[in-house]
């Protein structure tokens, strides 16, 4: 008898421990959440009362068995009903793992550093980490031969650290660090370059497949969509042990750099102070065939022979050629409208294909599916917004191109990840007529309108500019609608360096600060507490105030 009591006590204790591991020290708000729904607390009480009660119950909750399922179910309901926004603004913070966390040989790179780093993040109260899973590594050698061993090891490390995992399935390659597409795909591409995007001059973009081949059996008799689907299935079964617990979200790679876009900037020179407008990428064999088909169907067969002839080249400014001119540019002509409509709808359909694939594969799992929409802010303050046009977003001064995108996400019950939340207009050179803030506002409004949850990211792999954390805070503050999840890119030497880490720490703390700020206590409560404090005169110790 005696022993059994002890036994169960200890068991509970262990549970309590793990529950807190999951929580981190800053997440008490989420418990409020659970409690306000699951316990018989009168919601009409003053909020302070509720919080206080909630918090006290919290401690109890970790003692009793129902606590864990209760919390998980909250996650579930949030995950499976993406259209319902979270009841509070508590953003879940994730940090990206190094891009090359798993080597080409499927081993974990810098495992020691990552495990130490995970500990630090856990202590800091970060909820989880983002792990890029590369097609070129997990299905490297032959179609259908998957090797997730390195990623599984990492997932286990993450789980052990008590962190959550957001997995990005990357069907694209990378230049820096060099992560190519699978070898067998590259071999096919050598004989059949039309699987890649091509620009006007025939320059290929080899870090992802052209969206025009999505449904063509170019990969040894299979279509890329089928190959992606098999990959997702295989991932799902390999990670089944993590999927209902550690893994909370999946990002589906939608194109270059994982983003829904054309690689319109791939021929651009790096480090231009003012980025050029980029180029249309509709010149591979299959894209041109689709364009031709579409032109013929719409009764203008001559429009289907090529892309716009008067578009500037990669590094040029909008007005350097006719197409994007603010006044009298071809983009405003019927031809321009025809082309841009087609070009952007191809991108949207591609996105829809991939997202519906992902959401069907993961429909029976407790994970949310995400897709990344780029923040193409340079030249936003022109009428044509050429950078967005070449990337495939028909978003001009007069036409909202993002509603269609948001609608596509909503249809597939997916959430949008928006990068560049750290960018503010002041940071950028004025000459580029850039406005990341306005663009972000526009995209967020479109998402809000269609009930799509927005998640955030900092500008990809670039160092968060000075002042960037302030901008992040503002964007996460909920004034523009809630942010469901924020992924901070990315762990590495710079991330932990003395130049960066202290400000990141301050940032994390400031996000959570409101919850621990004593300002939250209504004044009369404070006064009341003070009054009830007896002073032990001989020792001067506050006894009850603690």
């Amino acid at each position, binding site marked *: 008898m*005696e022993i059994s009591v*002890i036994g169960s006590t200890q068991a509970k204790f262990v549970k309590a421990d793990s529950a807190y591991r999951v929580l981190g020290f800053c997440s008490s708000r989420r418990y409020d959440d659970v409690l306000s729904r699951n316990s018989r607390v009168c919601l009409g009480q003053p909020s*302070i009362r509720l919080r206080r009660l909630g918090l006290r119950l*919290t401690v*109890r909750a970790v003692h009793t068995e129902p606590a864990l399922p209760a919390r998980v179910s909250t996650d579930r309901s949030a995950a499976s009903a993406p259209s319902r926004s979270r009841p509070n603004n508590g953003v879940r913070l994730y940090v990206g793992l190094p891009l090359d966390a798993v080597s080409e040989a499927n081993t974990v790179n810098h495992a020691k550093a990552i495990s*130490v780093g995970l500990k630090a993040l856990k*202590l800091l109260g970060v909820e989880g980490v983002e792990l890029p899973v590369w097609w070129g590594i997990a299905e490297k050698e032959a179609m259908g031969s998957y090797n997730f061993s390195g990623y599984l090891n990492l997932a286990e490390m993450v789980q052990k650290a008590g962190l959550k995992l957001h997995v990005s399935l990357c069907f694209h390659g990378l230049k820096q660090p060099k992560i190519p597409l699978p070898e067998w795909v590259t071999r096919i591409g050598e004989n059949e370059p039309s699987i890649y995007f091509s620009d006007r001059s025939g320059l290929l973009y080899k870090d992802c497949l052209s969206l025009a081949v999505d449904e063509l059996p170019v990969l040894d008799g299979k279509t890329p969509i089928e190959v992606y689907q098999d990959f997702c299935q295989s991932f799902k079964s390999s990670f089944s042990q993590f999927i209902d617990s550690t893994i909370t979200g999946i990002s589906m790679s939608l194109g270059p750099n994982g983003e829904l876009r054309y690689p319109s900037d791939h021929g651009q020179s790096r480090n231009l102070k003012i980025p050029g407008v980029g180029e249309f990428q509709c010149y591979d064999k299959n894209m041109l065939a689709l364009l031709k088909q579409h032109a013929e169907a719409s009764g203008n067969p001559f429009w289907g022979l090529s892309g716009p002839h008067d578009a500037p080249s990669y590094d040029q400014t909008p007005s350097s050629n006719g197409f994007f001119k603010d006044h009298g540019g071809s983009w405003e002509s019927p031809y321009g409208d025809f082309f841009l409509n087609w070009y952007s709808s191809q991108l949207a359909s591609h996105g829809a294909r991939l997202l519906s694939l992902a959401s069907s594969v993961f429909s029976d799992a407790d994970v949310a599916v995400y897709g990344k929409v780029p923040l193409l802010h340079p030249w936003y303050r022109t009428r044509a917004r050429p950078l967005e046009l070449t990337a495939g977003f028909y978003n001009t001064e007069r036409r909202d191109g993002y509603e269609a995108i948001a609608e596509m996400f909503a249809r597939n019950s997916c959430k949008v990840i928006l990068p560049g939340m750290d960018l503010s207009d002041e940071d950028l050179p004025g000459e580029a007529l850039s406005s990341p803030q306005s663009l972000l506002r526009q995209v967020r409004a479109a998402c809000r309108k269609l009930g799509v949850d927005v998640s955030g990211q900092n500008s990809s792999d670039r160092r968060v500019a000075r002042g960037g954390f302030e901008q992040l805070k503002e964007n996460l503050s909920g004034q523009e609608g809630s942010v469901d999840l924020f992924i901070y890119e990315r762990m590495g*030497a710079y991330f932990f360096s003395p130049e960066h880490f202290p400000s990141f720490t301050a940032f994390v703390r400031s996000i959570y600060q409101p919850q621990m700020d004593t300002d939250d206590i209504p004044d009369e409560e404070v006064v009341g507490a003070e009054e009830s404090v007896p002073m032990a005169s001989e020792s001067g110790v506050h006894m009850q105030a603690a």
Partner: protein
Amino acid sequence: MSTVSIEPLIHHHQREIRRFRFKSSAFGPAPLSCRPKSRCDGGRLCSFKSPRRALAVVRAAAVVETFDTTDVVFRETFPLEWTDTVEGKIFVKLDKGKNEQNWQLTVGCTIPGKWILHWGVSYVDDVGSEWDQPPTGMRPPGSVPIKDYAIETPLKKASSTGEGIDLYEVKINVKSDSAVAAINFVVKDEETGAWYQHRGRDFKVPLVDYLHDDGNVVGAKRGFGLWPGWRAFGQLSNILLKGEASQSKAQDSISASSDPKQEDSSLEGFYDELPLVKQLPLHNSVGVSVRKCRETAKNIIYLETDLPGDVVVHWGVCRDDAKNWEIPAAPHPPETILFKNKALRTLLKQKEGSSGCSELFTLDEDLAGFLFVLRIKENIWLKYMGNDFFVPLSKSSSSVQSNKDSEATHVSGKGEQENEDVSGSAFTDGIINEIRNLVSDISSVKTGKTKTKKVQESILQEIEKLAAEAYSIFRSSTPTFSEEAVLLEEATKPPLKVSSATGSGYEILCQGFNWESHKSGRWYMELKEKAKQLSSLGFTIIWLPPPTESVSPEGYMPKDLYNLNSRYGTIDELRDLVKNFHEVDIKVLGDAVLNHRCAHYKNQNGVWNIFGGRLSWDDRAVVADDPHFQGRGNKSSGDNFHAAPNIDHSQDFVRKDLKEWMCWLRKEIGYDGWRLDFVRGFWGGYVKDYLEASEPYFTVGEFWDSLSYTYGDMDHNQDAHRQRIVDWINATNGTAGAFDVTTKGILHAALERCEYWRLSDEKGKPPGVVGWWPSRAITFIENHDTGSTQGHWRFPGGKEMQGYAYILTHPGTPAVFYDHVFSHYQSEIASLISLRNRNKIHCRSIVKIAKAERDVYAAVIDDKVAMKIGPGHYEPPSGPQRWSQALEGRDYKVWEAS
């Protein structure tokens, strides 16, 4: 009337066992009594014996409530961890033996415990302060040699003194004709690991006339018996190796101890006693059970504890979860008094037949909770993790809540600072515990801010440590992807936070030595003569040379950090010097070399990486990435200095020891702040740690690396260089300033080549650190390395006054080099200083650059001072101010607004 047995809730708590065991046998209904009972006074009984179970029998007088055990609705045992203070004394006695040839030294202690005498001797012909092992004949039985320089002998229980006090002592026989000059020792407490020294130094009993002449440490006093200071009545400073509780309490107020016993050269016996305070960490517990009376529905709370002595429960009840204290309705237990109408105080009844005490409380059914704290020994308060103990009472008998998980109870001790110390040291119990504590801290809205902050701090420190580790591994193992580093990074204005690092903001620093200062062997005494003069010149801070024993005479190759006898003078001369500066209102900076330390011993491979002295670290304290020294620590968090083992600051024990050392220097010597040597060698976050521990008035770090040059020409833009310095300051969280090496470098180029345009950056601000973070910039033109007899990077000759005209009129904290103070520049420098003071130019003054051309640079500071340097022409414009020329020298002019 019947009896009820109440299950004892006490067991003697051990750290590992956090759960209490319950018996679940049932007893029949029983009436209970509230009759006052005489308390058996156990006095100050401490029981450290094995767990016992006691049966407490309470007799009932009147019928009150009845219950049986099935009605127990809440049970919990809270561990109590607290520190008891036991006072006693250490005595040292030197007797004559049977004949004049034999003497006997007795060292004893009156507090029970496992005491060890850790001792060694000095021989007559010894130089330096190293210990040696005593001759075998001197070693009492049971002695164990420690390395090759010390002996450890346990103190044995001696016959009682007759007063009921046990004595622990050890006797050492000394032949007076032996070559032993002195016996050195410390007393070690094996149970706690604490060392007891005498005023921060080893005890020393000289046996023969000290051979050295005046000028030696304490030889000047030529005393026999104990060393000076010995008779000063002060508590021994107890250097606790775990926890820092008592350090601050050691009273050192009485230091006037210059009454050496002037004896002649024959040895005299003596007897001396010193008070000793031992901190005993104790583990007790308090158990609470709540039962529901079936008939009256009242709550019956049984509280018991094994705490020794009188235990007072300070308690109240609450009606809701806000936990507002209320006084419950009577009846209250016996021995209860009302405290300020806000709480009740009940003295617990001593249990019969066993140590500990208990009490029953009967409370109405409509209460939500029972709140209490415990008091023992008059003024030690025990709480639950910094909060009140809270026992939930069920209104309806069904739901019971416990807000307890059996984590360590933190003790609120005698005062606030101790409270924090204890909770801080509990960090080692594990990160998760802390997180949980924090959660509960955050949860309980009423939590004192300081506490929460403290716990957060310790978590943040842990995070920083982990981050530093992750950084060093990532950095060494990854190709970083920084090729495309965005250089848009604008210098942001760091927060203008007034902090201790800058002193008053009006400081003017003097570097009080040069590369030759060690030569005379009496620098401290020489500098003392100049204190008044330096003060009258207008200096507010002086930077003294590194004080520790060093392999190189200049002091920058420290060895035993606690040995402050250096080529500059003795520890006493240093103390005296500091005192002298303080008398003339000059603050003193100690030169702390934290980056590296010279070893005392070789490891098995013959590499010098094992340390001796008081901080006897092994090779874990040495960074791993310098192959010369085969360290076993982590990789360095900064650059390596290759001449000596670089200290691994990521090791907890290293940081703890260094913090202790810096605090000791602050206290023992009276340093007000630090000049930190070679801070490039380790992460600024650690510096922050050290400064927060030692709380200096002013700190400046030496972060010296190369400026950028293209084809031998210095680049105009030195932003990268100053950024590195600013980054370091940032890493210290602004707790330290740094020498503005950038400004010095740019002044070199500007003056040497007549390129005064260099003195304005692209934004029209000063191009050095002083342009970005003036309050943290310590501007200088020369130091012992760059100038003096080393001349590694000498300021352009003959142009020094232009440099001083610049730094002494500009924001930042200017530092003047000793060689310049005592040179023909003195009067010019003095005029500049007095002009700076007169116009109240401070480290954050606003500078407007008026001209930065080929041959002239001119600026107006705070609209009060105008200056120009360079051969070119400049006159301040006549605007709202009327300028009058105040100073003129070779290629510089300064005006004041009138």
